[in-house]
């Protein structure tokens, strides 16, 4: 009887099996790596309407974060400052700067500046700034070294796994409440201090679903 298949097909089943295993693993790896916020979201740096430099204000001038983001200790949101806050200084400093034209216009018309949001959580995740800031989670822990950013970008993945990294071991990340806005804070012995602070503030970071999703 004539052969139906050429000789190379002898190896085909083995190759198909091996190939499928490799492809399946590659798919899982690719989804895990390339679809994660760490790959897709970190480094998101939208163009802002006003070329405001955090590097100058928070870094060089050493302004405290809370000078502008005033409600962070009381509110879910670290608010974007009103134009009034900018004008506190800029009605005297650089009053005719080209870069500040939009701020002055806003000041005159009363129309707020449309800043572009950088750090976005999905609607199904509840997050409260006050709850974190008041027990000693530093600004930089989630937002990175803002004092070195000319234009703010997203420094951390803000993924659920990333949240849980801290919620499971808060003692590795918390700092004294007085140091919350400090940039580049390093504790001498983080673990010892962390355990102390966790006990002091009675930090019981929840890891059950409904703590953030409800």
């Amino acid at each position: 009887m004539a052969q139906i298949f050429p000789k190379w097909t002898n190896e085909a089943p083995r190759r198909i099996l091996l190939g499928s295993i490799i492809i399946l693993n590659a798919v899982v790896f690719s989804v895990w790596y390339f679809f994660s916020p760490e790959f897709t979201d970190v480094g998101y740096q939208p163009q802002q309407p006003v070329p405001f430099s955090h590097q100058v204000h928070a870094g060089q001038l050493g302004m405290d974060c809370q000078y502008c983001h005033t409600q962070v200790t009381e509110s879910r949101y670290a608010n974007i400052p009103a134009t009034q806050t900018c004008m506190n200084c800029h009605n005297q400093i650089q009053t005719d700067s080209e870069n500040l034209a939009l701020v002055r216009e806003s000041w005159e018309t009363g129309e707020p500046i449309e800043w572009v949001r950088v750090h976005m959580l999905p609607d199904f995740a509840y997050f409260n700034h006050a709850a974190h800031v008041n027990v000693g989670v530093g600004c930089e822990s989630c937002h990175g070294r803002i004092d070195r950013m000319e234009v703010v970008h997203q420094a951390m993945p803000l993924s659920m796994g990333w949240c849980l990294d801290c919620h499971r071991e808060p003692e590795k990340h918390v700092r004294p409440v007085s140091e919350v806005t400090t940039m580049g804070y390093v504790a001498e012995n983080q673990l010892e201090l962390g355990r102390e602070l966790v006990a002091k503030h009675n930090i019981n970071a929840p890891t059950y679903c409904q703590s953030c999703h409800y």
Partner: protein
Amino acid sequence: MSKTYEYVPEPALVKGNHDFKDITAMVTDINLRPTPTGWYIAFAISSLLLTVLLGSIAYLFWQGTGIWGLNSPAGWGWAIINFVWWVGIGHAGTLISAILFLFRQGWRTAINRFAEAMTIFAVMCAGIFPAIHVGRIWVIYWVFPVPNSMAMWPNFNSPLLWDVFAVSTYFTVSFLFWYVGLVPDFATIRDRIKSKFGKLIYGTFALGWRGSNRHWWNYEKSYMILAGLATPLVLSVHTIVSFDFAVSIIPGWHTTIFPPYFVAGAVFSGFAMVLTLMIICRKIYGLEDIMTVDHIEKMNIIILVTGSMVGFAYAMEFFIAWYSGVEYEKAIFILRATGPYAWAYWIMLTCNVFSPQFFWSKKLRRNVAFTFFISIVVNIGMWFERFVIAVTSLSTDYLPSSWGYYSPTFWDVATYIGTFGLFFTFFLLFLRFLPMVAVAELKGVLPQADPHNYNDKGEYVEPVVEIPEPYNKPS
């Protein structure tokens, strides 16, 4: 007092004195001859039903599970009932092919291919329901332990997760078992089919089978290993399905009798389904000599045994409800028999416990038409069993203030009927393109396969084929 026992020969497993060539022709000609018109008609109907299934699933994905009749106390409805029902049906195949194989029950060879195909398609129908009932279908991959950026991992405490693994393992092993058994028969069709395309397709699936000694050796070993693997699965799958209920603390579910009771019920319904399909197919395809009345009788005995086991479990549930002294447990069982779903309870009891008792009569056991009728009744009863378990316990649980009445909607019914479309579409394709009897294995149980060509002195004698007659010769 003394009584002498005579050796009673087993009746021949294949009737009609067919030789090897005959068997090959009888089974594989079905695949080789042109498609009959009747098949097209049946296929059109089942495809239509399949469209109903796909349509209702599409609408479900679009709208969400609100289109079903689920309400606040009854959070599980037809989807779970249908899942358990189909999985239960899927038990017969592997029981026949693996357990009966290990017990050297030669009669299984006539029906194992058939029953395994039924198993695989039934498990496919079953698998649809837990997948689509989750509501957010796009995150269904969360049931699998894959690494992800949410640091989420399946909850290994949950029997629902065990279910995912139990059913998918069962499906994989059943499928492999079925396929391994098919390889020699694929080769037979490859060698018999005329068209070049057919040779290519069947040849691909035959994996280069030439029937050499080494091939057979590998085949027998792998078949034995797979049978060994599949045997515990027959028991474990429905055990774990029963855990979906038993591990929760709902009255009427939280009982230790559930695993054996579910397994017995599964085998019960599976055998009934095999009988339903077998009785039709043996008639249409003229395989009465292979799937004989003896086979039907043996299967009816299993139906009688498992049906009585299920009946015993029903009685035991009532006994334990009383004996435990738990008020809620007592209440739920009284409500089952007399409450708002009493009609379903009594349908279940009639179909599952009373109807198989007819099979105490040998005459009825061997009556094909009656068996066909009972096999359908049994499957109706087993559907109602799952309905009674799932719905009564949920709709009347601890708090009378939260009780509610569950009834299905149009979409519940459409999805369920649609799964028959899926089942029969695959089954018809199976009947048309694959040999529905394990040809190679069946030849091994023919009387002709056991010739005695040499006498006591080692001299060659013409082979004499003795075909034992059944014990009770029809007079």
